């Protein structure tokens, strides 16, 4: 089936109407020797029922865990029912980019509301309509901070490895340099940063909480960065912003992050959501689409895609980013999530993440040979040493629990509001059992 509604008789009629007698003539500009002979090596088309069978069988080959204690950039949070149903609505789902404002007020207003929520969450002045994910948001931020004189980007070695590598890739593209600031005790090495903040540095990126779950001293990092005349970029976990000091209050010039925790499923890594916000001063350098408020010819309030002269379709090779499609539906999902949670619900989710992670940490580190790897406050992730690591993680998996992620120096654990105390107790008991063997 190809979803073509015209009947064979209608197709013949249409061919005749355009003055042709065969399909071949539609492709008469295609040199004959290039036309495919015979059929593609694909299976024959399937009915809806069969497609369902084939893909369900593939889905079954994945292990389903009842408890996920792994984060590292993708977090298992509770997704409220409304957050799933709204973005699945036919209209939101199947619309294109809202270039025609007269027909797209729903999409435009939803983006305007999203931009406002991201500003509220981060404390920044201006948000764009989204970029692909947290890693590309970091890379775009690095690009927007560079100017003619300052070309080099610094990134904390305690950032997510995929973020570092993505920023490195974007820098490779433009031929600019990326330098990684070393890590000391699981956090950005402040002294090393001080040394590295030379006059050619455009910006410094720190992740809060960092890859190891630890809280960085962002105020101090921001001050150091600004003192050297560079811009300060923070990569934030949006749920943590329910309780953590805003990037604005930490002095950030650009706040970015991975929006997946805001109601998006793990989904084997995507689609996710990159959010990006900045201060009034840097508004014009923000890449991607931005929705603005205006009035229509009758004087009524309405919304349009605005400041478009920054973008590739107008600025072409002079645009600082080539981004066109973004993650609009994921941004809608995130705003429904934030609206459903409300200010109190978001704070509660953040507090419970922290509470559960600390409970898990206490339970695990009470076991012999399991020790907290790094000192200092953390949010909902932490690294421990773990004897007989492979065995422990295998035992957890056999019991429906995805344990922490093996990283250098141990295992990176995560807990969120989604896990009950009973689930955490079960995981701790299983680890204890293996270690006691």
């Amino acid at each position: 089936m190809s979803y073509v509604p015209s009947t064979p008789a209608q197709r013949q009629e249409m061919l005749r109407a355009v003055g042709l007698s065969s399909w071949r003539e539609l492709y008469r500009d295609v040199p004959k020797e290039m036309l495919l002979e015979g059929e593609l090596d694909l299976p024959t088309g399937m009915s809806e029922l069969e497609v369902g069978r084939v893909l369900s069988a593939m889905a079954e080959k994945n292990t389903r865990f009842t408890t996920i204690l792994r984060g590292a950039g993708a977090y298992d949070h509770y997704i409220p029912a409304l957050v799933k149903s709204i973005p699945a609505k036919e209209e939101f789902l199947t619309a294109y980019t809202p270039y025609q404002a007269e027909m797209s007020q729903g999409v435009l207003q939803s983006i305007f509301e999203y931009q406002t929520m991201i500003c509220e969450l981060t404390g920044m002045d201006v948000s764009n309509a989204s970029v692909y994910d947290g890693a590309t948001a970091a890379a775009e931020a690095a690009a927007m901070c560079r100017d003619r004189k300052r070309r080099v980007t610094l990134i904390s070695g305690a950032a997510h490895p995929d973020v570092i590598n993505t920023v490195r890739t974007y820098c490779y593209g433009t031929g600019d340099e990326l330098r990684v600031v070393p890590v000391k005790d699981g956090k950005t090495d402040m002294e090393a940063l001080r040394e590295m903040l030379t006059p050619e540095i455009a910006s410094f990126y720190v992740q809060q909480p960092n890859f190891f779950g630890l809280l960085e001293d962002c105020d101090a990092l921001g001050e150091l960065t600004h003192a050297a005349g560079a811009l300060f970029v923070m990569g934030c976990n949006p749920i943590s912003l329910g309780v953590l000091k805003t990037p604005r209050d930490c002095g950030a010039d650009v706040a970015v992050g991975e929006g997946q925790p805001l109601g998006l499923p793990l989904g084997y890594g995507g689609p996710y959501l990159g959010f990006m916000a900045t201060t009034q001063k840097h508004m014009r350098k923000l890449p991607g689409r931005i929705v603005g408020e205006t009035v229509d010819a009758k004087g009524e309030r309405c919304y349009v895609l605005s400041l478009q002269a920054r973008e590739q379709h107008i600025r072409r090779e002079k645009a600082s980013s080539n981004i066109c499609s973004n993650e609009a539906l994921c941004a809608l999902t995130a705003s429904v999530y934030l609206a459903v949670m409300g200010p109190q619900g978001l704070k509660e989710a953040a507090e419970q993440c922290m509470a559960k992670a600390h409970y898990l940490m206490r339970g695990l580190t009470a076991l012999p040979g399991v020790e907290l790897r790094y000192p200092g406050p953390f949010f909902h992730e932490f690294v421990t040493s773990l004897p007989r690591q492979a065995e422990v993680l295998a035992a957890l998996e056999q019991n429906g629990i995805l344990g922490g992620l093996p990283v250098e120096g141990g295992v990176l654990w995560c807990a969120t509001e989604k896990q009950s105390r009973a689930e955490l107790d079960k995981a701790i008991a299983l680890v204890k059992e293996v270690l006691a063997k």
Partner: protein
Amino acid sequence: MNYPAELQYSRDHEWLRMEDGIAVIGISDFAQSELGDVVFVNLPEVGDDTTAGEPFGDVESVKAVSDLVCPVTGTVCETNEELLDAPEKLNEDPYGTWIIKVEKVTDTEDLLTAEQYEAECTH
């Protein structure tokens, strides 16, 4: 369309007036009318070097962006920051609204007189 005789013009539609060795630069009436409503002006920084025939900034309308090409080689000594808040001045009064001032001018493009420029535009 207005072409004041006391100004000199570049083929890229900038006007220039020399004031005590300082080049005062703006865009012509023709340029603003081709652009339509100007919504933003990207200005260089004071101290930036300019090169004759090279862009020093750009002007944005809703659906287009155009380079501002500098007719002289020198150093930017002043920018019209008023334009950041009121870019419409370029539409309303293109010859009364300068964009940048350039000092230490060492080189100048071949410029046109008002008469020559008008001929160029109406061609």
